[in-house]
């Protein structure tokens, strides 16, 4: 087991180098000169002297490799440079926005688990009947509708028609409900289908038949079916944690939620390159780490996975 983990850990090193390189060259892929962009975003006319000064200030006059190494070494220490817009350290901006995103992701996560588990159990219990079909229908629509549209619909219905919840912002604890539900909907559809199908499949296995024959209680049988159908769902759920955090971009913008998704969109609109680079890099790292953890957890749960590697 230890051997496996070390091997997996080592394998992410080249991946991280690749990611950092990609995140870094993003700024060089755009046609515009970052020094000019830095001036323009502050509404300064990019005269030749101003551009030259800014190039020096940003270290753009140094060779590419030197700049990359400087960026990577300082990034490892958490120093992603300063924002073009407000000249604050990028890491502070991210640290300030992160709790809001984590809260949103956490609430969504709880909603996803509670709703998908209960809905899939109901579907399995009433397989093929009206309620099963109704839930599956809703799930189908949930998956097909784009998030921003659902978000606006929910906002219109719950905030304006029913006047129950605030439309946007982070003014009270109820503010989190609409964005979290919007974010959760797409995932709920996936998990309900996944869990329900697993459970329905397992329902027809022999051990269920034996249990029934032995006269075990329905609820006990259901518990066993549920446990046995969890494995693939747990892996998928593990991988959806980084997706939830990175996927807040649209929801945070619609609901004016002050998290890192908002931060990144604002940075993109303002051409705030240091913030964009840091965001891309951190999100990529988050994916790599979560993927690694999911693999390790699966390996612990299922010894077959270890042998295959």
């Amino acid at each position, binding site marked *: 087991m230890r051997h496996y983990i070390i091997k997996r850990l080592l394998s992410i090193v080249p991946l991280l180098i690749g990611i950092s390189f990609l995140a870094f060259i993003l700024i060089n892929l755009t046609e515009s000169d970052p020094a000019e962009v830095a001036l323009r975003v*502050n*509404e300064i006319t*990019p005269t030749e002297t101003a551009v030259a000064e800014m190039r020096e200030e940003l270290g753009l006059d140094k060779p590419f490799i030197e700049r990359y190494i400087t960026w990577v070494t300082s990034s490892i220490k958490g120093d992603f440079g300063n924002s073009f817009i407000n000249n604050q350290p990028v890491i502070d901006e991210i640290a300030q*926005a992160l709790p809001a995103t984590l809260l949103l992701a956490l609430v969504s996560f709880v909603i996803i688990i509670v709703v998908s588990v*209960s809905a899939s159990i*109901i579907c399995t219990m009433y397989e093929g009947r009206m309620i099963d079909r109704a839930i599956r229908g809703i799930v189908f629509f949930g998956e097909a509708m784009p998030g921003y549209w659902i978000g606006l619909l929910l906002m219109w219905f719950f905030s*304006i028609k029913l006047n*129950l919840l605030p439309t946007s912002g982070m003014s009270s604890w109820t503010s989190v409900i609409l964005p979290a539900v919007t974010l959760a909907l797409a995932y709920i559809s996936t998990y309900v289908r996944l869990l329900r199908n697993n459970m329905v499949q397992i329902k027809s296995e022999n051990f269920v038949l034996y249990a029934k024959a032995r006269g075990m209680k329905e609820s006990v049988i259901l518990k066993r079916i549920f446990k046995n159908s969890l494995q693939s769902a747990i892996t998928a759920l593990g991988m959806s944690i980084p997706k939830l955090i990175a996927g807040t971009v649209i929801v945070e913008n619609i609901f004016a939620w*002050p998290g890192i998704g908002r931060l990144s969109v604002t940075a993109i609109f303002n051409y705030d390159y240091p913030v964009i680079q840091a965001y891309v890099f951190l999100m990529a790292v988050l994916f790599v780490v979560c993927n690694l953890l999911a693999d390790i957890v699966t390996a612990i749960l299922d010894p077959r996975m270890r042998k295959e590697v």
Partner: protein
Amino acid sequence: MRLLNIGLLSILFLLLLVSCSNSESNATVRDEIVYASSKDIRNIHPHLYSGEMAAQNMVFESLVINTEDGIKPWLAESWDISEDGLEYTFHLREDVIFSDGEKFNAEAVKQNMDAIMDNEERHAWLDLVNLMEENIVVDEYTYKLVLKHPYYPTLTELGLTRPFRFLSPNDFVDGMTRDGISGYSGTGPWVLSEHKENQEAVFTANKDYWGEQPKMNTVRWKVIPDHQTILLALEKGEVDLIFGSDGDMIDLDSFSALEEQGEYVTAISDPIASRAILLNSNRPILGDVEVREALQYAVDKQSIADGVLNGSESVAPALLSATVPYSDLGLVERKYDPDKASELLENAGWKLNNDGYRYKDGEKLELSLHYNSDNAQEKTISEYIQHDLKEIGTELHITGEQKQAFLDRQKSGEFDLQYSLSWGTPYDPQSYLSSWRIPAHGDYQAQTGLDRKGWLDETITDLMIENDESNREAMYEEILTYIHDEAVYIPLTYSRTKAVYRPKLQGVTFNVSQYEVPFEKMYFETE
């Protein structure tokens, strides 16, 4: 099933709880205006350019202000200008203090002006900063500004939203402001009391304000990035006011929809800035003035004003509106006349072919138009123009580009037709014309093919330091007539600032600058 019922019940209960707490907050008396903006106020450092101008304007004030009736006294009660136009002596109000308790006097003015001069490079766009020679404290409440050359727009530029606004010297870092400041103590009607980045900013009325007290206690500046959400928040009553220019806050479709609903008040300002299309005279086809003139007649501006801009903007007969200083020249409007356009092209040697397009020496009459793809309105206008030009046998390729690529193209001059928006009052005409001399601007590039471009730039330079009013009038007339005759701009419409607000909100007006929001005049009708 029981689980489901319990779940549903608890959700209902929760919602009920929420709705109860909501209705409580509605009962309080309104002494707060909630304003929604898609942008955060950011850093409102008055001497720099990264903050929202409307927020900077709430906290910091200038010596004089630009109004519809010209320049009026503000922190300076009066002023004298020396015969040679080099010395401006300002007599300051004696009852003004900064919000940190510090006295506003000639010493504070000098320190602010020195700090602005110290950062000259950043203010390169503004001629006045480059022309400032010295700041002198004459006595406690008399300050003298000495210039290198006479500069007629001095007072107008001193009244701009930035950078000539005053910050308490206690907030300076090492006696300067170029590398940041330690606080936002101004003399304005509002004090920034709370700022949660990307969420909201709260401005409280300045209790020690020297002028008329704002009628409301607070202005809450909410950041809502999505326009649809802003409208829903307005509908719900969470937001009282939306305010903005050129589609950045309210797109015109939504504006018309809100107007029709009749539940809100919609207001529109006088013409502010000029929307136009640049015709690059430095390109082979557009180098011919007859072709440029033909395009002027080919574009149906009225359809654009009605169809795209929903009638909210008036058609522009000339580049600058007659309401802009020095611009009421009675220049002859080139009205939509496709026959005349075809005739001009015919004269210029562009003959119609069977395929519906014109050719000259085997070369097709095709041009390109670039616009900023972030702006939905510009795309539609481009499509209208594309259609109009096809009618006269001209093929127009339209390309949307990211803002930075668009600006790069302006700088390099790699365009035939490009969008142009003037700076708006009070920057028009002086700062706008002044910018024509800077190669980074599309205007400069579009004009480089003109025979008298050298003369044009020199005249603009001379104009800025011309001390005689009648000479200035003559020079403006000469410049604007030349530009009009050479047809380097297709004037489209004059843009206006728009506001949408709840009927109970009173006193919503517009300042001369489209970037300022006069919150201090707004109040709620008592219920």
